[in-house]
Structure formats: structure tokens, C-alpha cells
């Protein structure tokens, strides 16, 4: 596989998703020394970042009709805000 083919392939996004998953796992696993609320928010936002990647790249919403993109972003933004507030209260 050439660099160009790799760059076009879904595996670059997959690598990013795996990296964020690893980071999220470490943050969630070793929470004893850090402020729990902050680490909890990090875990939630890392998950939402991964969801954004899956939606825009794998589900191809990035190049889709504007209304579909806006609907996806609205859902994700709303969910993120509500989950963050719910977690902190």
C-alpha cells in the first residue's frame, strides 16, 4: 500500500480512533491522582470525539447534504452538553 492509498484508506481514521481509545482507557483507568470530575468529562468528550470521527469519516457525513451534517452535529452537540451537565450535577 502506497502512502497515497493509505491516506485515502479508512485506516488512518482507525489509527486515530484507536489512539483516542487508548488515551481514554488510560484516563479512565488511572483516576486516583486526578480530579475525578475533570477526568470523567475527558472520558465523555473523548468518546464524543470518536463518535464525531465515525460519523464524519466512516458514515461519510462530511461530504453529505448540509441538512444531514447539521442534524448530526446538532444531535452530537446536544448529547454532549446534556451528558456533561448530567454528569456534573
Amino acid at each position: 500500500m502506497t502512502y497515497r492509498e493509505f491516506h485515502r484508506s479508512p485506516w488512518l481514521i482507525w489509527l486515530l480512533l484507536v489512539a483516542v481509545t487508548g488515551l481514554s482507557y488510560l484516563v479512565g483507568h488511572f483516576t486516583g491522582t486526578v480530579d475525578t470530575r475533570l477526568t470523567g468529562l475527558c472520558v465523555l468528550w473523548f468518546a464524543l470525539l470518536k463518535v464525531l470521527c465515525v460519523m464524519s469519516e466512516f458514515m461519510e457525513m462530511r461530504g453529505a447534504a448540509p441538512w444531514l451534517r447539521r442534524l448530526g452535529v446538532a444531535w452530537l452537540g446536544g448529547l454532549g452538553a446534556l451528558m456533561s451537565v448530567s454528569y456534573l450535577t
Partner: protein
Amino acid sequence: MARNGVEAASSEGGIPGELGIWVVVFGDLMVFSCFFLVFLDYRSDDLATFRASQGLLQQPHGLLNTLLMLASSAFVAQALRALRDGAGSAALRSLQLAFACGLGFGLVKVVEYAAKFALGVNAYSNDFFMFYFIFTGIHMCHVLVAMGVLWYLMRLARSGRQDSVTLRNFESGAVFWHVVDLLWIVLFALLYLLP
């Protein structure tokens, strides 16, 4: 541009797959969003029980399942690109690998459930495990349906048809598989990782 002239609907500012699949997808996302928020609400009411119960889950199992889901999604995305490029056999291979990842996910889930039952834990143990079994159970049903969809896509890829209708069906199936993946991403964070 695809070699065989069959382009993605999304490349023209349309929608990937059928409109109907997006109605199903957003309906599903709304239902799961309610699940997530109810879970967080119950969690804040009884944090000690939720934390203690979370400690009984095997995080490596959840991590392994997340990696399997992410890999399967990448394989499905790769299959779709291969089909657009007119490489039906490459698409079929990628779909078979995605299907294998789905099987692996199910296997890990069975092992995990068995370990919980061996500990005497079930959906009636407490609120955390009620949510755990309901959410992961409903998600597992989605995985099984999505594997059926992958099976259908494999038949499409094997048939060698590469017209626009086939591509649209393929895109719809791929979208559904990715939704199953993204729901698990949030479930993993909520059930296994959230401190």
C-alpha cells in the same frame, strides 16, 4: 471518481444510502441518547453503588470489544470504497473480516456475561447492572441484526453487481453498521470508564 463510474451519493452533496436508513438511525440515536441520560441521572443519585458495580466489570473486555468494533467499521468503510472502485472481491474480503470482528465481539460479550453470572450478578442485582444488561443486551441485538445486514452485503458483493442501486444498498448497510459501532463507543465510556 470511481473507476466503474459508480460514485458515492454523498460525493454529490446527497446522502449516503437510502433516506429511510437515516430515519431509522436518528430514531435509534434518540432512543439511546435517552438511555445515556437516564443512566447518568441514576448514577448521580447512587454514585457509591455505581462505582462499586463498575469495579466488577472487566475493563480489558470492554477495551477489546471497542477495538473489534473500530476494526470492523474500518473494514466496512474499506469494503464500500473497494466496491466503488469496482473491486468486488476486495469488498467481499473486507466484509468477511468485518463479520469476523462482529463474531469476536459477540464471543467476548458471552464470556463477559458468563463471568458476571458466575459471580451471582444479574440484571436484578442493582440499578447499575440493570442498566448494564439492558443496554448491552439491546446493543447486542443491534450487532446481530447488523451482522445479518453484513451477510446480505456479502451476497451483494459476491453477485458482482455494481450498479447504483447495489451501491445505495451497500451504503445503507454500512451506515447501520457504523451506528452500532458509535453506540458502543459511548456505552464503553459510560459503563466501563467513567470515574
